[in-house]
């Protein structure tokens, strides 16, 4: 057993404590449903196992919360949308099956931006989540509920999904670790789809090694998701993770403008810490990174417009009342228009427009070409460095209501995170300091495809050198 063991002494006791903590954390609005019956049954079963069998389960008794766009059999799964208010998942996502098999106990479903579309959690049909560090601030998005429950100490682990930064940015805003694995590392079977060439499930935890252990439990090929690959297994760092000799790429030009001074200062401090431990900084160029946001919002919305076509009021989801339509087509339109929130409608329309006749070449095709150039920039960088370092987000947690009326300003908050999705690369956010108001800052490290061993080792080495990071009061 390692010194990092996350497993509690008793599964049922840990489950009861987590359920009580969910209740105590109600003011955060981070949890949409608890899964008490399922959790208690699972926990009791784990406690009843012979010691040797229990010891063999890597996450035995660990309470875990799921973002509410991940299906867990018998639990309401809304994806933060009114259109799925009554939807009860009839099956488990692959990640849920794997967590179960590892001995984890799923205790809650977490609030999120509707269909994972947002950077502040304000697009949830069930109200915004509050940041545990300051209740008038956003926890980030779209996995804001998942980040808030881990930061508040309700559960040690939550799963989120990351299409353009939706694990890493809320981890940054809430002062915890958030890991987006390489595209293809984790099955999305049972994840409610947003942008299918970008979506990836990953963990939010307090420490890098914990994130690695959870990823190890959920990763691996799945015949039910053809995008998963037979990638080499990765190693979770042991107690000793050296910075000595680590080659850290820093895209100076990208950081030259549009980054808050406090964020820049904290990231520079983090780089200095890494250098003091023996890491070597390399200036690198990512010349197409400035095009990542427009590329992302074209690709993601195009894919969303196709994925969200399935919500038609027939097999599942909201159907408009009988008086609101007179034929099949008007039933679809009425049901969809009543069920989707404003940001989802905005993205469906943008995606539909850029895929429509006459505009496809100028927008979607162009974006998929620029995407190739963004990926090539990273491939070039990883020929000479082990990881690339930059802030996770250009600011710390902004105030609720501050950007919600200006979608473009909200999109720009994703400037440092979307490239990893466009290129499929693994990336992690690790707390690296606090701003003048005491709010956490996140350092983002990105590694080459399927180089999770390197990514986790570098992140753990930095984390060790940094020392303990505080929790919200």
């Amino acid at each position: 057993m390692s010194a990092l063991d996350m497993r509690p002494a008793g599964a049922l006791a840990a489950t009861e404590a987590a359920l009580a903590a969910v209740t105590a954390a109600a003011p955060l609005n981070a949890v949409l449903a608890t899964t008490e019956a399922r959790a208690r049954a699972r926990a009791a079963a784990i406690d009843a196992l012979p010691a040797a069998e229990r010891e063999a389960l890597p996450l035995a008794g660990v309470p875990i919360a799921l973002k509410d766009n991940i299906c867990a059999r018998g639990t309401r799964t809304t994806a933060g949308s009114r259109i799925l208010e009554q939807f009860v998942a009839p099956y488990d996502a692959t990640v849920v099956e794997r967590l179960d098999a590892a001995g984890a106990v799923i205790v809650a479903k977490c609030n999120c931006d509707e269909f994972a579309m947002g950077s502040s959690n304000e697009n949830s049909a069930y109200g915004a989540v509050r940041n545990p560090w300051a209740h008038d601030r956003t926890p980030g998005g779209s996995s804001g509920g998942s980040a808030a429950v881990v930061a508040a100490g309700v559960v040690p682990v939550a799963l989120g999904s990351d299409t353009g930064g939706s694990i890493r940015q809320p981890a940054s805003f809430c002062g915890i670790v958030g890991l987006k694995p390489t595209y293809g590392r984790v099955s999305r079977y049972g994840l409610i789809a947003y942008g299918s060439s970008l979506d990836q499930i990953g963990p939010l935890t307090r420490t890098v090694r914990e994130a690695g252990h959870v990823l190890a439990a959920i990763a691996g090929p799945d015949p039910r998701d053809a995008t998963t690959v037979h990638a080499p297994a990765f190693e979770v760092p042991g107690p000793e993770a050296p910075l000595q000799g680590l080659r850290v790429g820093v895209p100076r030009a990208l950081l030259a403008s549009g980054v808050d001074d406090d964020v820049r200062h904290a990231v520079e401090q983090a780089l200095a810490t890494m250098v003091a431990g023996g890491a070597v900084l390399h200036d690198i160029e990512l010349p197409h990174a400035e095009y990542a946001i427009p590329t992302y919002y074209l690709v993601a919305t195009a894919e969303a417009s196709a994925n969200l076509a399935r919500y038609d009021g027939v097999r599942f989801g909201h159907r408009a009342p009988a008086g609101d339509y007179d034929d099949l087509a008007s039933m679809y339109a009425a049901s969809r228009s009543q069920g989707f929130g404003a940001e989802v409608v905005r993205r469906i329309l943008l995606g539909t427009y850029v895929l429509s006749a006459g505009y496809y070449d100028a927008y979607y095709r162009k974006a998929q070409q620029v995407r190739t150039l963004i990926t090539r920039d990273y491939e070039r960088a990883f020929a000479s460095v082990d990881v690339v370092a930059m802030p996770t987000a250009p600011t710390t947690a902004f105030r609720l209501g501050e950007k919600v009326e200006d979608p473009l300003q909200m999109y720009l908050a994703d400037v440092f995170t979307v490239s990893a999705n466009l290129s499929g690369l693994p990336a992690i956010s690790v707390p690296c300091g606090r701003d003048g108001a005491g709010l956490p800052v996140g350092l983002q490290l990105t590694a080459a495809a399927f180089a999770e061993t390197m990514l986790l080792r570098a992140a753990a080495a930095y984390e060790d050198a940094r020392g303990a990071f505080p929790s919200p009061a």
Partner: protein
Amino acid sequence: MSRFSPDEIDRVAALAQLRLSDELRDRLAADLAQILDYVDRLQAVPTDGVPLTSHIVEGAGDLRPDQPRPSLSVHEALANATDANEKAGLFRVPRVIGA
């Protein structure tokens, strides 16, 4: 901000099977115009001969054998529908044929 006429927004909304209120139509026309003005900066990137990203990781796309295996029961498959005829095993929708 005149990139989208009300007719143009309605054309796109119809493609997406959405119905917009007057207020939402005006708001979305302005939002989409602003967003498209921003994404137009992509046009400045030279991309002649650059392939489209179609798959981002090598080795993906393995298809499983097409073999019958257990799936949801009819009861489970119909459980989330607003209107279903469980006895017949059908989802019910407004009349399409002969309507």
